């Protein structure tokens, strides 16, 4: 009987104790949140890549995975925070606004721990150039030094140069990658096209298509899809502008609504919203008439990158 009592007493004390611990934790969290009215400072990295490699013993691959996932979480958190404070979507288009100052170091540590880990190089090539082009180039050059046979790294480095409008360097890098064993034939074609056409839309579309085909990362693929949509949208907007110019020439004024130029728009074979008659951008959002109907622009709700 006394044994039963003691079991009951102990069980109750465990349950009550756990409930109290939960209560205290919640109270402490609320108190700490209220106490720190200042905005939380940027987290710091305690380790450099080489130190992390030494400390990780035989587990450097696992540590690299950890830093890689931390990089993804870091960007994800920044995007969520931005969207909460700016009440709008960022979608990785305006990365400079996110203040991703730790991302280069996180990617560097991941690739120092596991130099053959290609995902951080690819992610770095896509994300870093928008706010730290020099670091993006350094990351890819380091990757090439450690993996001289990896033609994909030349593809990414070429992309960074191309995006920075350094077409001769981009062509040179594609050309160097094309000579590597296993490199696809289009690497040499990209080298020639970048040299001849520089920043043309055809070159851009081809570059994005190859990047899309080679990528295994869904986030990177989504980013590339939006860039392809942007190229398509540039072409669509050119066609719409020429339609608007034709209408202005015929009528002597800019249209007041899309309905007025509906017959002309149909000839361009653009997708048109049946209710408003507005042409639809590649993300499915209707374009807007701007400058008193004399120009076309993207809707703010559109997923097509503005810049």
């Amino acid at each position: 009987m006394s044994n039963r009592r003691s079991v009951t007493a102990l069980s109750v004390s465990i349950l009550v104790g756990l409930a109290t611990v939960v209560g205290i934790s919640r109270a402490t969290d609320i108190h700490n949140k209220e106490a720190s009215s200042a905005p939380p400072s940027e987290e710091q990295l305690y380790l450099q890549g080489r130190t992390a490699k030494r400390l990780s013993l035989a587990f450097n691959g696992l540590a690299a995975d950890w830093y890689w996932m931390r990089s993804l979480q870091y960007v994800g958190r920044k995007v969520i925070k931005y969207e909460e404070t700016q009440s709008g979507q960022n979608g990785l288009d305006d990365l400079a606004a996110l203040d991703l100052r730790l991302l280069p170091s996180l990617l560097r540590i991941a690739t120092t721990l596991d130099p053959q880990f290609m995902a951080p190089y690819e992610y770095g090539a896509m994300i870093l150039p928008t706010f730290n082009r020099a670091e993006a180039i350094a990351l890819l050059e380091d990757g090439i030094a450690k993996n001289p046979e990896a033609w994909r790294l030349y593809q990414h480095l070429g992309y960074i140069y191309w995006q920075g409008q350094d077409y001769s360097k981009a062509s040179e890098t594609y050309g160097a990658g094309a000579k590597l064993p296993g490199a696809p034939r289009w690497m040499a074609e990209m080298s020639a096209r970048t040299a001849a056409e520089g920043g043309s839309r055809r070159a851009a579309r081809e570059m994005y298509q190859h990047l899309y085909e080679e990528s295994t990362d869904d986030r990177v693929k989504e980013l590339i899809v939006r860039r392809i949509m942007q190229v398509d949208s540039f072409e669509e907007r050119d066609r719409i502008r020429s339609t608007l110019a034709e209408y202005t020439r015929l009528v002597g004024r800019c249209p007041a609504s899309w309905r007025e130029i509906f017959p002309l728009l149909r000839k361009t074979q653009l997708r048109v919203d049946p209710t408003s008659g507005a042409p639809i951008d590649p993300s499915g959002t209707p374009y807007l008439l701007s400058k008193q109907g004399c120009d076309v622009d993207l809707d703010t709700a559109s997923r097509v990158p503005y810049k």
Partner: protein
Amino acid sequence: MYIHRVFSATATIARNTFREAVRDRILYNLLFFALLLIGGAIFLGELSGGQEAKIIVDLGLSATLLFGVFIAIFVGVGLVYKEIERRTVYAILSKPVGRGQFLLGKYVGLCMTLLVNVLVMGAGVSLALAYVTNGWDPLILRIWPTIFLIYFELAVITGVALLFSSFSTPALSALLTFLVFIIGHLSGDLKSFATSLGGTAARWVFNALYYLLPNFSYYSFITPAAHGQIPTSASFLLAALYGCVYVTVLLSAATLIFNQRNFK
């Protein structure tokens, strides 16, 4: 006839050690947690941006090594101590069984246990890979040479644990073995210390430490394995040979010390 008797006695001790270790609850717990960790790798992989297979190999093989090291250390250091503590060592050594045979039997028994563990954990990693790749991926087979390299490393660590346990307490033996595991993975630094230091004596000391302490970097292939690489046959065989020779040295030293011990 003599050789047969020697082998038979050693095999009996090994078999009993294996049975005892398998019955040990700690062993099951470690195995359970390792499998749980491998299962967790599948979920972690979803956070990895298309790197599921790499993360499963890294996490699964690292868990195999880490839990293997825990088993080798915590079971290894108690192998001899428990027999002395329970006084069963008197009964064993009163029979025509040499002290060296006793240690060898204990060592082989624990190595058999570790082999079962490593094979089960390796199979778990392969299954997890098959799950995330929807059936087949070359990695499923390509990780196995690395799994055997992990096993060789564990065999050396077991030898180190047995050596320390032949003259020290389990707690101190566990600590010393763990330190050897850490130093063994930093042996490249010992070599670079030796080359960077100016003094001849210091250079000699670091060079001696580099060559005399076990060099576990020969068995570190988890990171390349996650990229589908396999060790060359030469490096695999040299690592296996290095392990065999090193274990022979460790068991000889353990026997030498154990022979001097007075159980009265």
